[in-house]
């Protein structure tokens, strides 16, 4: 997903680190990685530890981290729109308008990264400390408990206690219903493909006017 950008910018002290929130592990991630042929690090996060540490709830989400290890843009949607919600669930066709807006959103996000790489802290896309703090998604007690419950459920499945593990993951989804990474990983661990099947579409539909991907708050972004 990021290979072209990485090749363009890698000489400028920039890297992508792509983390697969993949409880099925390298066996599942490998074909995707080999197809993409990335030359930046692609890491496998079986336990969703990055989601836990950076308060991520979906893919793709991204964090911008500067050369000193400081966050200049905290966890947010990474150049995606909700256009897929207008997709025909049987033919997978998307309306032309949604395809164009999706491409435009991605283009804006990549341009923002380019600007940051070129201009560093003076880029209008790099957040000053107070703004970065304000943009940081907040943990609640329930979110923290959802992460503990996810770890327990995933481990139970790993040691062969599948039914209890899936029940435990379902409890995690009730604690943090906004986390799509927990729900979709649970669905995928239940049955490969379930994360994009009828239950997924029903859950997306049930959002109503709520966002699947929260809009990114960045100069040049339209109001959503």
């Amino acid at each position, binding site marked *: *997903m*990021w290979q072209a950008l990485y090749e363009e910018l890698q000489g400028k*002290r*920039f*890297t*992508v*680190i*792509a*983390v*697969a*929130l*993949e409880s099925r592990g*390298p066996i599942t*991630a490998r074909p995707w*990685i080999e197809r993409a042929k990335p030359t930046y*690090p*692609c*890491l*496998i996060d079986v336990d969703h*530890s*990055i*989601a*836990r*540490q*950076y*308060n991520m709830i979906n*893919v*793709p*989400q*991204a*964090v*911008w*981290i*500067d*050369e*000193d*290890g*400081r*966050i200049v843009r*905290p966890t947010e949607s*990474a150049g995606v729109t909700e256009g897929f919600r207008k997709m025909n669930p049987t033919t997978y066709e998307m309306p032309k308008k949604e395809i164009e807006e999706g491409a435009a959103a991605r283009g804006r996000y990549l341009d923002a*990264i380019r600007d940051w790489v070129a201009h560093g802290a003076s880029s209008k896309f790099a957040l000053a400390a107070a703004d970065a*703090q304000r943009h*940081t998604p*907040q*943990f609640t*007690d329930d*979110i*923290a*408990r959802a992460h*503990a*419950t996810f*770890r*327990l459920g995933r*481990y*139970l499945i790993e040691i062969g206690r599948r039914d*209890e593990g899936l029940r435990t993951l379902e409890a995690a989804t009730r604690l943090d219903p906004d986390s799509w990474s927990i729900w979709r*990983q649970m669905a*995928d661990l239940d049955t490969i493909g379930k994360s*994009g099947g009828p239950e997924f579409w029903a859950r997306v539909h049930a959002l109503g006017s709520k966002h699947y991907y929260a809009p990114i708050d960045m100069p040049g972004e339209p109001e959503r």
Partner: protein
Amino acid sequence: MTTIISGNAVRDVDARADGNGMWLAPNDFEAVTGFELKPEGFCRDAMCIPIPPNRAGEFQRGGAINISRFAELTRRPWVGSEAGDVWALEEPADARNDALQSLEAPEFELPDVDGTMHRLSDYRGRKVLLASWASW
């Protein structure tokens, strides 16, 4: 044998459960939580969390330490399996929020598809786009 998932590890410990929660030997408690019980309270690095007055017996008995009461006191999620033989201990929401509000990107160590470990700090000196993805 009780299995406890915490921090970056899964550990098997000898634990005793009673109506008041789960009791661990001090070395197991410290390995699992990162905290040591001292007269000042539960201590990690320079910080100590005192035990509420008159409640010492809920937290420590005959050398064993009650991890359930510790979790409750420190608002750590403490989630158990149906049989009570596997548990997960998480950092409290406040600690996670403080960590992110500091704007110091939390360190992690994860393998690539060949099993080579990579740390975020390995990439210090470069701008990093840390991006999540999944096959699902």
